């Protein structure tokens, strides 16, 4: 992933490197890996500089002295839930600030067998499974977790989910999809199962296998490929996808929607997945205008205003509907 890797992801990797450097000198191989990482997206070098500066700043922590008690600095407002039940906390999801929308609603659930986990409209939820694998559920999605001693089975009932599978030599990780099991030893991939649309699988890292294992019909999907499953029949060959497309398709994990030349009409339909507010386009030509950009999924009104100003249209909010029209004065 080069160009559109999220800044947050870069920030995390930069922190990993600074922590590694804080531990001691890098081996020759590690240096090469770091150099290779830095030679990619320019933002990485900026993030590493910032992380290093913050690490340097934190060295002044010695000034806090041996009697430093962090508890004294904890925000009074922050609750300290003790029981596993009260840990189930969905974080505020505010899109108004646009930038703040990047925060992912996080919820850690201690998953009981066969418990269905369901997200509401506009909710994105990170679920950590018993083995350390994680699932990010997109808006209006539902899955059931069935872990046993021999298999880690997930049933995606509907919606969209991004899986990060950690290896477990004993138990394969299997996602049940309408008759076609998806198997992964390790890796990250997205599965989308929306009403009236074929199941869509996108592999980010690692590899997955689709179809009954061990049969000639099983298809292996390497990293950066996509398959759209037909209602029946064999699994088609995986299509390679660019890193840019991949990161656009996964922008929802950070509460965003990315477009690259999609028609405004399609963009409006995409926003409808995340919010009660509907975008109504009153002009067929306007609905065909291409849209490019990265937007907060929770802010269809802000998106409409931005689009209106760029396309010389007009956005008018009426209750839960934003109406987009051409400016009358324009030819």
């Amino acid at each position, binding site marked *: 992933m080069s160009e559109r890797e999220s*800044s947050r992801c870069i*920030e*995390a990797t930069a*922190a*990993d490197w600074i*922590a*590694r450097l*804080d*531990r001691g000198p*890098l081996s020759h191989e590690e240096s090469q890996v770091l*150099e290779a990482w830095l030679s990619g997206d*320019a*933002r990485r*070098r*900026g*993030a*590493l*500089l*910032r*992380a*290093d*500066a*913050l690490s*340097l*700043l*934190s*060295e*002044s*922590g*010695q*000034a*806090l002295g*041996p009697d*430093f008690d*962090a508890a*004294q*600095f*904890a*925000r009074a407002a*922050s*609750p300290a839930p003790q029981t596993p039940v009260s*840990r189930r*906390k969905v*974080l505020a999801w505010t899109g108004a*600030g646009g*930038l*703040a929308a*990047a925060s992912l609603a*996080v919820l*850690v659930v*201690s998953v009981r067998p066969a418990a269905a986990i369901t997200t509401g409209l506009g909710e994105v939820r990170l679920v*950590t499974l018993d083995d350390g694998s994680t699932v990010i559920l997109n808006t209006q999605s539902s899955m059931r977790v069935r872990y046993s001693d021999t298999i880690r089975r997930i049933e995606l009932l509907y919606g969209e989910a991004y899986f990060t599978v950690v290896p477990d030599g004993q138990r394969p990780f299997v996602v049940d999809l309408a008759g076609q099991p998806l198997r992964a030893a390790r890796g990250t991939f997205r599965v989308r199962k929306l009403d009236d649309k074929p199941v869509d699988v996108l592999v980010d890292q690692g590899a997955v296998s689709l179809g009954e294992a061990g049969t000639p019909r099983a298809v292996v999907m390497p990293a950066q490929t996509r398959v759209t499953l037909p209602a029946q029949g064999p699994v088609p060959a995986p299509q390679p996808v660019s890193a840019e497309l991949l990161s656009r398709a996964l922008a929802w994990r950070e509460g965003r929607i990315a477009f690259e*030349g999609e028609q405004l009409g399609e963009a409006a339909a995409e926003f409808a997945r995340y919010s009660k507010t509907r975008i109504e386009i009153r002009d067929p030509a306007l609905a065909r205008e*291409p849209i490019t*950009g990265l937007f907060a999924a929770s802010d269809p009104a802000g998106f409409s205003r*931005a*689009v209106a*100003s*760029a*396309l010389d249209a007009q956005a008018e909010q009426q209750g839960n509907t934003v109406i987009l029209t051409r400016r009358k004065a324009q030819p």
Partner: protein
Amino acid sequence: MHAINRERTRWFLRNILPHEQALRNWLARRQPLGLEADDIIQETYAIFADLETVAEIRFPRAYLFQVARSVITKHVRRARVVSIRTMDDLTELDPRDDYPSPERIAIDRDELRRLAEAIASMPDRTQEAFVLRRVDGLSQREISARMAISENTVEKHIARGLRFLADWFGHGGNALAEASRVRDSENMSLDERARIQSVH
């Protein structure tokens, strides 16, 4: 290896990082469509990382804004749909901002308080490891022995601590700090996973 240049980092910490909040405020007011403040900031800082020398930068704050502006302009040209707001005036920059002011001197104490708050927001085990490293000055190896966890796990805690710090200084800790308690269990599994791995 020149991935990290501590001299540059020191200069950056003293001259650029203190203006990050002002830069964020400035970006938030404009909020160029399709561009995220963090992306612009990282790309802007990259330019500072890549500069041959910073010796000639007399007005770091003004220079910082100028670089950020050039980063935005570059993106604006690339994007096909851009908010009109992106185009409007990119602020007259007042070099006088670079003269030390009484507020600027007060920042150090303020930063120490912010650091303490950022540490307070970390999940328990991460906080313990981070305090041992940064307040008590133990090495990662010593922390590993003290906390009876692997060095790899210590490193992961330090990395996570740095992410909290990055978040605290960038966003006032709103995103991660709230999540910190929630993540306690994830945190636990970090220790446990490492333990399992070391058995193999």
